[in-house]
């Protein structure tokens, strides 16, 4: 398959996904991006244009994308489409961008541009150079950080696609920012009202068994630019009826939503690091460029675990690193839509000397910057389960809404009361691992103690890797290879 980088050097499908108003719109765009639906598709250095055929008797749509804001000003591209949709960008514009990153467009010069599109492109250039606030407003329209298709906390990780194009208004554009804050706060007020209604009517209300109930709430949070919270609500929907103790699991998560909603309405009064974490957990994005501008944390980073999860139609990969000197944890996220590839540059069991740039707040989310050299990996030491609980508690105290953190333990996998547990002399914790990973651990350790890295979740430990003397086994949940390539 052709790499997106072959076509344009920088943009990837993830960038396009980040422009979509949500996974549903991105999926719709993906559907209409097939070549049979287009009678033409061109690209020049600065613009894309094409004609979408649509239904047999329908009027074709002229679609134009002005790339200059993205290529020169690190802004989002401007789009124009003759379709009746009021969404900006519409699915046809996203589809054209998808075709571009896949290398499906034919290179051309602007002479082939239809007249209307050419004049729009000229006006677009004029407005961009003469009116920065307008450009910021366009950015506000076209990219909704909260609506990003993926997200899996801990904390600031929520809803933030890796390498997403910048989508916050410039710092001096306070009007756009204020408008977004107002929308988000209104959404949080509505969320709290919804939660209180649920408390009044009770969790036994049959409507909670319907996914539509949760999806509707999630959609409203997306409208409020709190997409990360929306993703969390959708995950919560999956807990209903999922286990015998689902009432408790759902209630605890509703409590976390209450905490987030309340915290979100009090952001200005919170300490800055807590406010940063919370804002990102709600769906407020940070420009990747801003993260990379921060002071790097230089260390040798051991890659200790990996875990893939499906978020609606996006596969999310969490790669966990631990600093050899600092012992600090970091988490690198990558995202892949259907038929795209997840990041494989940080294999479990390797180590890299690199700059690490952390996102604001107390979360572990980070970006790996300059990589100096790969160094031999070392086997980490494992802690007791009691110490692991302490460590997880400390991590959660810094970021109370986090859904997971990571620990490395020296313990054995065994059974207790009919369930799989991880145990040592200090106690035992539930094992939330699937059969394949359990078999990998048992087949390697024979039930003996070993050093293992696991994600700590409210449901128990999810085993990610087994550290042997000469190798590390990567046993974390892996993306379905029929969905993403080269998982």
């Amino acid at each position, binding site marked *: 398959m052709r790499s997106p980088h072959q076509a344009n050097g920088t943009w990837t499908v993830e960038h396009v996904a980040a422009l979509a108003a949500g996974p549903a719109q991105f999926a719709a765009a993906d559907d209409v991006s097939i070549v049979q639906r287009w009678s033409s598709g061109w690209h020049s250095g600065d613009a894309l244009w094409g004609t979408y055929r649509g239904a047999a008797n329908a009027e074709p749509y002229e679609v134009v994308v002005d790339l200059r804001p993205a290529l020169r000003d690190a802004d989002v591209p401007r789009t124009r489409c003759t379709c009746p949709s009021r969404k900006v960008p519409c699915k046809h514009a996203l589809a054209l961008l998808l075709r571009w990153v896949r290398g499906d467009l034919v290179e051309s010069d602007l002479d082939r541009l239809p007249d209307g599109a050419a004049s729009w492109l000229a006006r677009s250039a004029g407005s961009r150079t003469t009116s920065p606030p307008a450009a910021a407003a366009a950015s506000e329209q076209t990219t909704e950080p909260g609506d990003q298709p993926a997200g899996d906390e801990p904390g600031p990780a929520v809803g933030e696609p890796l390498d997403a194009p910048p989508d916050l208004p410039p710092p001096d554009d306070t009007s756009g920012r204020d408008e977004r804050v107002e929308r988000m706060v209104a959404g949080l007020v509505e969320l709290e009202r919804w939660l209180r209604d649920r408390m009044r009517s009770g969790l036994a209300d049959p409507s909670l068994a319907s996914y539509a109930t949760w999806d509707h709430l999630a959609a409203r949070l997306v409208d409020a630019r709190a997409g990360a919270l929306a993703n969390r609500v959708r995950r919560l929907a999956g807990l209903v009826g999922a286990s015998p103790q689902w009432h408790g699991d759902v209630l605890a*998560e509703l409590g976390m939503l209450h905490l987030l909603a*309340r915290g979100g309405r009090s952001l200005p009064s919170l300490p800055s690091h807590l406010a940063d974490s919370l804002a990102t957990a709600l769906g407020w994005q940070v420009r990747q460029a801003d993260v990379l501008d921060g002071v790097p944390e230089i260390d040798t980073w051991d890659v200790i675990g990996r875990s893939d999860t499906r978020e609606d139609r996006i596969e999310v990969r969490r790669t966990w690193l631990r600093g050899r000197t600092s012992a600090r944890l970091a988490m690198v996220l990558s995202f892949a839509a259907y038929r795209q590839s997840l990041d494989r540059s940080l294999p479990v069991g390797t180590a890299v000397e690199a700059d690490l740039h952390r996102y604001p707040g107390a979360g572990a989310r980070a970006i790996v910057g300059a990589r100096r050299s790969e160094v031999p990996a070392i086997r980490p030491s494992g802690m007791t389960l009691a110490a692991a609980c302490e460590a997880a508690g400390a991590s959660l105290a810094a970021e109370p809404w986090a859904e997971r953190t990571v620990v490395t333990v020296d313990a054995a996998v065994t*059974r*207790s009361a009919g369930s799989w547990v991880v*145990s040592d002399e200090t106690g035992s914790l539930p094992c939330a691992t699937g059969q394949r990973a359990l*078999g990998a651990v*048992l*087949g390697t350790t024979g039930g003996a103690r070993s050093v293992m890295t696991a994600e700590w979740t409210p449901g128990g430990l999810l085993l990610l890797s087994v550290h042997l003397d000469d190798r590390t*086994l990567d046993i974390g949940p892996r993306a379905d290879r029929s969905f993403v390539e080269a998982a």
Partner: protein
Amino acid sequence: MNALIESPEVAPDGGDASSPSADAYWDELITVALLGTDRRRPPVPPAGPVADVVTDLDLVRGDSSDDARLLNHVATMALARRLAARPGPPATPLAPPPPDDRSWCPVAAVASWRTLVDDWPLLEDEWLARAIATGVRPSGDLLMDLLERHRVDVRRRQLVQHLAGSIVGWTSEHLGLAMAPAGPPLNQLVALPAIPLHPDVAIDLAGAAPAQFANAVVDVLAADAFSGADRRLLEHVLARCAPSALSDVERQLSRVADDARGAAAAAVLAELARTRTAMLDSFGTSS
């Protein structure tokens, strides 16, 4: 039912979030949440840090309704339970499997297997035979992948069971995995199954000395004696030829010019030769 405006009461017993009374309090919160505050009022928190927090929340926030108070209590208690999570009592370790002092299958060999099952599955039988002959055992992740891959192929599953040794029965018993029935003797099991060879050309090739073999393969390609559909036969020849011929073959095939007749097939066959060589080398026993 409307709540009365009041300070939360605090039960006299209880303390931290993991104490029995805290558990009972959480259970009671679940019950109230299930029924709804229209039917039942939130319970009184046991005295302790959680009660202090919810008291502050209710008072400072001015949350007077039962539903708002229930949410405050639930959020505080859920957070406290996560922060204060402690291990349960230690569990008895599993009875260990019979000892197996063989060394792990080399990392390179594991990587080789993962490559060839994707690209050159016709080499897998030789990989399994070589692994058994080398006397290594698979790590658990490789074992699970092998079992999953050969879940319906009895002969290969038997080979995997031979390779894994006693751990496979032990693991299967604990996880409820199906075991293949005992098969034929190992020497029969590891014998590479026959694969189709071209009756006129390939059999002669398979019997040739390495240098002759390499030249003959290139000659066959150059003469276009094989159609595209027949390329599979040459692949089979390369999969079964003497390992000592592989380097000659790969070198000769790599010399075929890009625009020469059969160049595409030569590139594919060279890749196969390289993969097989790497596979054999990965066990440290290439010959």
